[in-house]
């Protein structure tokens, strides 16, 4: 039963409203029905109902909102030419990065392609470090030397620029997991465009042969750059493309669906059965990158429809509010906090200095004594330090 105190919340000071929120009768958790996954070579799939606790719900909401706002801020900074180079945004796909993280442990591993800002955040880096890396400053997570596509964190292997190359890498990380015998899994992501790369099939073969604990995840946002899935793939059932590898097709706009599917897949891998494939059906609001308006190969109506019917943040919010897990005001408060966090991070990312030119040659080799690197001509030398 929902009791209404809303007017009081809006006008009272922060601490008081917190007390009032805390004392209001929210449910601790709620059970939700989620879409059944399509299965390939699997007798059973993930459960069709799941329990969401209030605490988790608020956490997921905050994380998704942070990713959303961070991407929109990156869009803004790019248009102001404070971010240059490549910038591939994932707004619309928040349920994927947050949902996947919710289904695994921090000790598991994750690798993805270039649409990586959301994963960089969910894997533990701060918005500050991410935005500063986008703006190419020394406070960035890669000291400004990697940029949008090359951010790394503990158990997060980027951020990879070559389409499809990250998939064998992910299988290799899974090999290391098995080699070390620690029960860890590796989430290896790629897009619907990359799904047609040959090396992915090479990786499927070896992962299945050697029973590597690798979860291959196809983030299908319907377009590989400007090519729709129907124009790129003879078979758009990406979850079946692993052939001998079991697969499931997941609603990638529903964070609970993603979470349950991930838990299922991770349990499968951890049991030693070998790799498994997940296709997340999702959507990106932005174009392929900041240089793509995103409307020459799809209609504005389509984008609008997804936004209004399937937005992952809206779906979670509605669920929480309608089931007494949170109030609208509470979520609005989170929005305000997130906005502030992003604003502060953007300020830092804009004001922080670029890495000094003297450090141009740093980090060429690891664990080596310092040496000299030739610059633009034989008289210009840069010092290189590991």
């Amino acid at each position, binding site marked *: 039963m929902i009791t209404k105190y809303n007017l009081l919340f809006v006008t009272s000071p922060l601490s008081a409203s917190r007390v009032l929120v805390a004392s209001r009768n929210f449910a601790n958790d709620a059970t939700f029905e989620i879409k059944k996954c399509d299965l390939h070579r699997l007798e059973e799939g993930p459960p069709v109902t799941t329990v969401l606790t209030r605490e988790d719900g608020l956490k997921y909401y905050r994380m998704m909102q942070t990713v959303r706002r961070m991407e929109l801020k990156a869009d803004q900074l790019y248009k102001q030419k404070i971010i240059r180079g490549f910038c591939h945004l994932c707004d619309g796909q928040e349920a994927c990065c947050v949902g996947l993280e919710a289904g695994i442990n921090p000790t598991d591993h994750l690798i993805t392609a270039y649409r990586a800002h959301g994963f960089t955040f969910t894997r533990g880096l701060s918005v500050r470090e991410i935005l500063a890396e986008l703006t190419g400053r020394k406070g960035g997570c890669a000291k400004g030397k990697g940029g949008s596509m090359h951010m790394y964190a503990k158990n997060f292997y980027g951020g990879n620029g070559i389409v499809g190359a990250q998939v064998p890498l992910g299988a290799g990380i899974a090999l290391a997991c098995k*080699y070390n015998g620690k029960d860890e899994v590796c989430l290896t992501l790629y897009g619907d465009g990359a799904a047609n790369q040959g090396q992915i099939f090479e990786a499927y073969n070896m992962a299945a042969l050697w029973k590597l604990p690798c979860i291959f995840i196809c983030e299908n946002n319907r377009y590989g750059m400007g090519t729709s899935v129907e124009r790129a793939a003879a078979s758009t059932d990406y979850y079946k493309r692993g052939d001998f590898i079991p697969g499931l097709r997941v609603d990638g706009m529903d964070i609970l669906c993603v979470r349950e599917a991930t838990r299922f897949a991770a349990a499968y891998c951890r049991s030693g059965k070998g790799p498994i494939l997940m296709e997340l059906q999702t959507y990106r609001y932005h174009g392929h990158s900041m240089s793509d308006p995103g409307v020459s190969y799809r209609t504005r109506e389509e984008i609008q429809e997804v936004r209004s019917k399937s937005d992952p943040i809206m779906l979670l919010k509605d669920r929480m509010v309608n089931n007494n897990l949170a109030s609208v005001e509470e979520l609005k408060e989170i929005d305000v906090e997130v906005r502030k966090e992003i604003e502060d991070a953007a300020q830092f990312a804009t004001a922080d200095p670029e890495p000094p030119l003297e450090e141009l040659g740093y980090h060429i080799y690891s664990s080596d004594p310092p040496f000299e690197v030739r610059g633009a001509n034989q008289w210009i030398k840069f010092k290189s330090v590991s």
Partner: protein
Amino acid sequence: MAAVSGLVRRPLQQVTVRDAINQGMDEELERDEKVFLLGEEVAQYDGAYKVSRGLWKKYGDKRIIDTPISEMGFAGIAVGAAMAGLRPICEFMTFNFSMQAIDQVINSAAKTYYMSGGLQPVPIVFRGPNGASAGVAAQHSQCFASWYGHCPGLKVVSPWSSEDAKGLIKSAVRDNNPVVMLENELMYGVPFEFPAEAQSKDFLIPIGKAKIERQGTHITVVSHSRPVGHCMEAATVLSKEGIECEVINMRTIRPMDIETIEASVMKTNHLITVEGGWPQFGVGAEICARIMEGISEKLVLEYSQAVINIVYLNTYWIRRLKPAFSPRSCVQFPGCSRCSCHWC
């Protein structure tokens, strides 16, 4: 250099290049649990060229892994394993096949430490036979020294002797960077004297340092891999005619030890580079360019002899090489000149 009894059967042990690489890998596999070998036919076949003979029997499936014929895939898997903390040795059956996987070597392995701002090292070794073999045709004969030598972030080594092979493979495995080791199939069966120190389990040859195989005063001859042997033979022939060659075995292509070459050229004023790769944009071209840049500062007045770059044409080059070395056919040009076997 007293022979340690029990270690050598003869005063100086003769070890083939193949056995030297095998020993080096065996020792590193034993020393560090994280080291493992993967590639086509490395396990049950004992290695396509028998370089990994006996290793699978000793270490088993976990450490010696036969892969399907999927270069791009298994090279990527090896790089991923290295990123996650293991220390793989990835064998290409020949480096010609590495071209299929070259994206993983360059973009995933070589560049990552730099792009991550020093966060993500990639301690991997790519090894295998490089360059020409005996009549295996164009697709199986390319030398990749200059292709890999071009890329920052990679280390590229090219052993000639057994000592080189063992010391360099061990250094490569222990190095925390991606190292490409360019072996030579025709050298695998060639025995060399193995000095006592090379028999130690900690025998390492530093990457980035060339070796002067033969001291000389009249002409500097720089080479790497199998051609070093030919240079040594040519030097013996020329010595009878009173010309003393200083033969430099590069050992490392990148980072190149240009200082050793420069010091030698300053002494002799003559330079020949000898390699098995194509002339344009090759290793010899790089040496010539650097010598000319360095020389312009140090030896402007004294250096006026030709720098000759000799490149193999996959044919009977020894006959070409001998006359090329003789002073009668040495052509003098002002400044630097490169010619590739015009007299063939």
